[in-house]
């Protein structure tokens, strides 16, 4: 096992592309577990209450989800103890995700009712009516 001796010799604090094989102190798995369970209860309780605007519910739910995701990634996935390379790999797709979703916003907000993508707005296929009358000869 590597000793954390390199730190004692005044090495740069943030080496990139390296990994710390053992956290210097035990990772707080049980604490994070408790936090995650508590946040799950919180998000369900928040959802019980309907805010006047649905967007408030959505944003609160997403905020709690991001908090939970951060806990999982940082502690369970050891991101906290990783070097810059792993951060780079982890962050690039997140940026692409933001790009993808924001690039779709015009589709949601700026469509006319008669544009080809208007079908996204109203799911309204032709109505199905029961015309068959099996007992009727």
């Amino acid at each position, binding site marked *: 096992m*590597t*000793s954390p001796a*390199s730190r004692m*010799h005044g*090495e*740069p604090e943030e*080496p*990139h*592309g*390296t*990994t*710390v094989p053992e956290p210097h102190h*035990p*990772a707080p*798995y049980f604490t994070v*577990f408790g936090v*995650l369970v508590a946040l*799950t209860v919180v*998000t369900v309780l928040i*959802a019980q209450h*309907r805010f006047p605007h*649905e967007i408030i*519910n959505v944003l609160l*739910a997403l905020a709690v*989800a991001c908090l*939970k*995701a951060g806990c*999982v*990634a940082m502690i*369970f*996935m*050891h991101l906290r103890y*990783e*070097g*810059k*390379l*792993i951060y780079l*790999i*982890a962050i690039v*797709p*997140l940026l*692409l*995700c933001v790009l*993808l*979703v924001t690039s*779709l916003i015009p589709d*949601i907000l700026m469509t006319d009712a008669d544009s080809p993508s208007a079908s*996204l*707005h*109203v*799911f309204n*296929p032709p109505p*199905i*009516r*029961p015309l*068959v*009358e*099996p*007992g*009727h000869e």
Partner: protein
Amino acid sequence: MSESVLDHGYIPEEHAPDPVIGHGDPTPPGKIAIWMFLASEVMFFIAILGSYIILRSGSPALFGKFAGVLNKWLAGTNTIVLIVSSLTMALAVDASKKGNRPRTILCLLITLGCAFGFMGIKYVEYMDKWHHHTLVYTVPAVKPNQPTPAATEAGEPGKTYVIDGHLIAQDADTMTLRGAKAEVPTQPPFNLHLIGEADIEGLGAGHAPNAQHAASENERKMDKQEPEFNVPKAWIARDLNYGPWKNQFFACYFPLTGVHGIHVIGGIIPITILMIQAMRGKLFGAATEYIGLYWHFVDLVWIFLFPLLYLI
């Protein structure tokens, strides 16, 4: 892990810090590989989640109505189950790296148990939707030379009815459903794909169809025992269950949870292998860590799916 050259306080030229890799123990290639795999997984999931967000913002009333049909308590239990499995997986990685074989086996076993528990609860949820039917049937009209039958519980002769509810029994000629029943309105035309149980209760009470009802299915079920209806199969004109073909909401719900379920199965297999190897006396610290990273990612996806599908 070999002792680092840096421990000796002097750095030979060939061991000078690499401009990219840096100091200390280099990140193992396996870890970089699994993180790149997870990065591609993030993009995969955001693509289908993004489609869901777009479709949902296009038809908020429809999605809101059918999201209320889902059982959020089962899904909440599933969230806790996955969090527990994430914890035990993290402990398994820790135990495996420290060479603690009994603890590794125990933790992997609990993780596997949680994974199967998750799939079991998922199965219950899927079956609940699978057995949720929307039926349209017409009671046969009376022939002129026959005596007029009394109006049965199925309805008056010649009229068309719609039932939305759970299939509780069926034999060769009859389906028994528990749910809501109403006469099919002629105005405005109604759409089988857009109609839910609450709408049909509304129809029965004289409200317009497709109205949004705040109370979710579960909340209403607690209020009263729902009536049962027996429908002869010969009378049924339309039969649509709550599968992906029901409407856009279920066409999002099933792929999202289904793909996630496949990822859970994809985690069960290597965890089983690691556990069997640990039982045989072999510990794979690095491999356990990588599988652990994947498993935490599966948990992470569910952390987003749960509020997006069940809570909002």
